[in-house]
């Protein structure tokens, strides 16, 4: 048990160190790149006085470490500074949008995880049959499609031609839960189509790996039915890799929302990020990047820790 605890603590420590370094990159990246960013934003015509005043206003005249720790201190307390474009608090801009993004990701995950698991297990069981090959071609194809292509095809058929779902997901907080789900169904379906392929390929690989092991062969020789082998013998051991696959894909989902949110004009964090990049609103970009990166890192960390915790060999040491 002590060994597991040690491994988990190590991973966690490493994860938080990464998070710290990443926050530094996000903050200081602005610094290291060539060019004066105050000058860039104000344009070539700005007088040296205006640039100097602007720099002072942003605190750019202070040394970088002072500003970094000020910023980090604020972030920890939920204060991300003020937006350059709208002069509002960044945390006000982000709050509701973050919830919307998480909601979209959750709906997509609720659809895609079961579908991918079932298809993956079936493909592994009926390996090298027509079914498996069809699924293989289908997944290769869907990996190759740009997100927005999938999104527009869905819009064309489900929203325009058959008029089942709305093509624009405008949501507000006063909608009921199911109305909210109904409005995000198209973006959620798009995300599902994009990540199901990855998830099911990895599930298939995990199960196939396992089915090749001697104890499964033994079970087969004993004449146990196929379904029982899968549910009682294979699945418990395949759980670790499968959980890993799910969590990693959830991390993938968090980033995947950016393009999809723009297509469906969904008021989420991804859209805010893209708008802010276009406006070069650095504080908002930094805050959104930090949130995306942190979610991504934390989910990957969770996958790491879970794979240690569910590893039977580590749980029952000799």
């Amino acid at each position, binding site marked *: 048990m002590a060994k597991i605890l040690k491994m988990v603590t190590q991973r966690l420590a490493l994860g938080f160190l990464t998070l710290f370094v*990443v926050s530094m990159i996000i903050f200081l990246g602005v610094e290291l790149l060539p*060019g004066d960013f105050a000058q860039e934003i104000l344009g070539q015509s700005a007088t040296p006085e205006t640039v100097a005043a602007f720099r002072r206003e942003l605190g750019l005249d202070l040394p970088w470490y002072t500003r970094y720790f000020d910023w980090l201190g604020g972030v920890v307390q939920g204060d991300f500074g003020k937006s350059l474009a709208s002069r509002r608090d960044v945390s006000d801009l982000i709050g509701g949008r973050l919830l919307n993004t998480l909601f979209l990701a959750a709906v997509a995950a609720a659809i895609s995880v079961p579908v991918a698991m079932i298809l993956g297990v079936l493909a592994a069981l009926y390996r090298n049959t027509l079914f498996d090959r069809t699924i293989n071609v289908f997944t290769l194809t869907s990996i*190759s499609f*740009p997100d927005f*292509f999938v999104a527009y095809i869905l819009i*064309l058929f489900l929203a325009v031609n058959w008029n089942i779902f709305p093509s624009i997901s405008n949501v507000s907080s006063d909608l009921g839960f199911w109305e909210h789900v109904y409005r995000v169904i198209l973006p959620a379906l798009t995300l599902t189509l994009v990540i199901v392929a990855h998830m099911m390929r990895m599930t298939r690989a995990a199960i196939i790996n396992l089915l090749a092991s001697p104890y499964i062969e033994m079970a087969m020789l004993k004449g146990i039915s196929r379904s029982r082998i899968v549910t009682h013998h294979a699945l418990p051991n395949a759980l670790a890799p499968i959980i890993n696959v799910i969590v990693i894909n959830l991390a993938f989902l968090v980033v995947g929302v950016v*393009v999809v949110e723009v297509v469906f004009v969904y008021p989420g964090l991804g859209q805010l990020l*893209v708008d802010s990049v276009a406006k070069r609103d*650095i504080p908002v970009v930094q805050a959104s990047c930090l949130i995306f*990166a942190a979610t991504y890192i934390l989910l990957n960390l969770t996958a790491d820790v879970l794979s240690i915790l569910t590893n039977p060999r580590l749980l029952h040491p000799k």
Partner: protein
Amino acid sequence: MAQIWKLLKSAPPTALFGLAVIAAYILVAIFGPLLTPYGESEIVGSQFELWGEGFVLGTDNLGRDMLTRLIYGARNTIGIAFVTTCLAFLIGGVLGLLATTLGGWADQLLGRLVDVLMAIPILIFALLILTITGTSVPVLILVIAVLDSTRVFRLARSVSMNIVVLDFVEAARLRGEGTWWIITREILPNAMPPLVAEFGLRFCFVFLFISALSFLGLGIQPPTADWGSMVRDNATLITYGDITPLLPAGAIALLTVGVNFVVDWFLHKTSGIRDDK
């Protein structure tokens, strides 16, 4: 010649389809200007004209010929993605092979650096940098190549890890060959198959990535014809049930499907073990 023919005959239909698609795209990209009826950003009609005579696929949001821009888009989008992938392989490949050949602290340093860079999702990282640098084509190529080279580095390193300990590398070292000679003459030839396959996959990724950035309005900028931004500019047509905006998106999808099919076949051929993934 006969060998190539034999190889093609043994290829599955999906791989043949992929090869045909890639060949067609390359031809269109090279001979683009000869095939197009109009200039790249020449305004030739009114906005959003329907498919028909004069404009086979109609016109776009500014009245430019859609077919012309699709063909020029092949040059720009594929060209930029190709250059970016090459650059990413140059950086990532050289550093990856150097890391294993030199070993020690150089390996550690590069490894940790790449770990940190890979902890940030590539789209988020790219958006952060593009906010500061602005979006011009050379910057775009450089930023994406550097970010993507981390993935190439990982692969190059893990592949060459197993080669660098083999006897013939040791022998070359004892002969007193230089690092560069060892990398290019001893390690690289043996690391080729996985790297070639990875090139195909990375190209797909970069190609999709640049298209996504352009679609977001943060990649290749107008008036350059580019498939991602063409989708964005004409997206409103979708709500009228017009499929024109799907054409550039479909063009992107078709090429990546083609490349993926070929890579899949190549992987099957070069390594019997790689059945899944």
